[in-house]
């Protein structure tokens, strides 16, 4: 469980977050939505201590991550897997080395076991035969999938997705959404998806938190969102092309 309590953050004169509080329950899938530049990514980076708040606290499984030592914080971060917006693959390494990197650094596995695990992870994201390529040779969607495979390499408890479908064509977006849904359905996995793609939200999320004006403007389940009479939220949801028609939700959360 992650608790965010009254955090403030500003960069120079620019205020980004003001008194933000939210609780993320275990095993749920929470979507953080809002306009571009509304502070979604900043809030997300607070969750694993990549950004330190000016005021307030972030508590992960009962530990205030900004009060512990750097070593303990790093220990804590291993509970997380993160999919970055651009993939953030290490471009000095091959795809295989990218995927093997967390395993080599943090696990006691032998090189054979690592090879097997990398292949397994690649199969999970429906990619095969790309081990020897460089990240620069991959398409946007493939990069995202490799990055996803790397994020789940250490079987994290929390998976954070930063704009997982942005910049992708609708078909690839759907593939990624399906992957996220299947990963979220695993036991003991909590997912946080930062996005402005309403189709993604409707496909994968249990709950949504809408950020507006440096604050969490609205929080609720997807059903509640459809019924909500908040004008700002409605305007945001309506602006999306996908609000009509019930989303296809075959798998239960």
């Amino acid at each position, binding site marked *: 469980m992650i608790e965010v309590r009254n955090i403030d953050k500003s960069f120079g004169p620019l205020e980004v977050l003001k008194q933000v509080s939210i609780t993320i329950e275990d095993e749920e899938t929470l979507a953080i939505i809002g306009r571009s530049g509304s502070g979604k990514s900043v809030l997300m980076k607070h969750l694993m201590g990549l950004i330190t708040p000016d005021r307030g606290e972030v508590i992960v499984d009962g530990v205030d991550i900004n009060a512990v030592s750097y070593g303990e914080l790093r220990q804590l971060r291993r509970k997380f897997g993160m999919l970055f917006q*651009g993939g953030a693959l290490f471009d000095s390494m091959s795809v295989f080395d990218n995927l093997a990197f967390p395993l080599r650094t943090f696990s006691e596995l032998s090189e054979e076991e690592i090879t097997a695990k990398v292949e397994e992870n690649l199969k999970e994201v429906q990619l095969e035969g790309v081990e020897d390529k460089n990240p620069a040779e991959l398409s946007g969607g493939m990069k995202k999938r490799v990055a996803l495979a790397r994020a789940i390499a250490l079987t994290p408890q929390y998976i954070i997705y930063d704009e997982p479908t942005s910049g992708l064509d609708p078909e690839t977006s759907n593939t990624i959404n399906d992957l996220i849904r299947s990963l979220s359905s695993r036991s003991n996995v909590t997912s946080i998806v930062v996005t402005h793609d309403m189709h993604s939200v409707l496909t994968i999320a249990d709950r949504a938190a809408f950020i507006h004006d440096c604050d969490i403007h609205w929080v609720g389940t997807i059903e509640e969102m459809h019924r909500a009479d908040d004008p700002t939220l409605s305007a945001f949801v309506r602006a999306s092309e996908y609000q009509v028609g019930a989303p296809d939700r075959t798998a239960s959360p």
Partner: protein
Amino acid sequence: MLDRRFLAPIEALGQYVLLLTKAFQSLNEVSIYRKNLFKQMVAIGIESIPIVALAGLFSGAVLTVQTAYQLESPFIPQSIIGSIVVPSMVLELGAVVTGFILAGRVGARIAAELGTMRVTEQIDALEAMGLNSIGYLIVPRVLAGVFMFPVLYITATGVGIAGGVGVAHYGDFLSAGEFVAGARQFFSPFDPMFGLLKAFVFGFIITSVACYKGYYTGGGAEGVGRSTTEAAVLSCVYILFANLALAILIL
């Protein structure tokens, strides 16, 4: 807004010192950077040997020719050329030429590398995995600089002196024997030690400034370009200052 402009450099200095403090604190986590250290030593050190040797060769040769030109007088023994060229290479040119060339080659490379990693969130990715990004990225680069710069200094100085002897001998200024005799007459074993110290300091300055600039890059591709330029220019400026400071403090 005026006070901001005055405070900004001091803030930057603080940020730089804090970064280096964190780097030093990570020094004992050898397993994080061991493999990377050798990779960087090859990239920063071994791969710079040809260009540094070339620069050393030409500075030694030019210094010899110009000294011979300036000292063309029947009252001065020709061997004085050796007495001037060798200490000049050992004390000053070997270290400074190496420093300037590597400020461009190594400084820009490090800043561009780390800057790109920063703006494409690769540094965040390292941190998110629970890795100490400073220990992983900065420590091996700075250590490689400190270890390999003396090697490059020795290369530049050695090749430079050889170039001086070669030009003197085959350019009919004075024989290699006279050159060496002149060099020996005024040789002090302290000089190469001082040159070596300079190389250590310059290596530290170039790599640490470039790491600082690269690690704190912001603003996309343009930011990477800015960091790269600043890293090269600032390392050159700091080398000049450090050179003067060392000369005043130690000589």
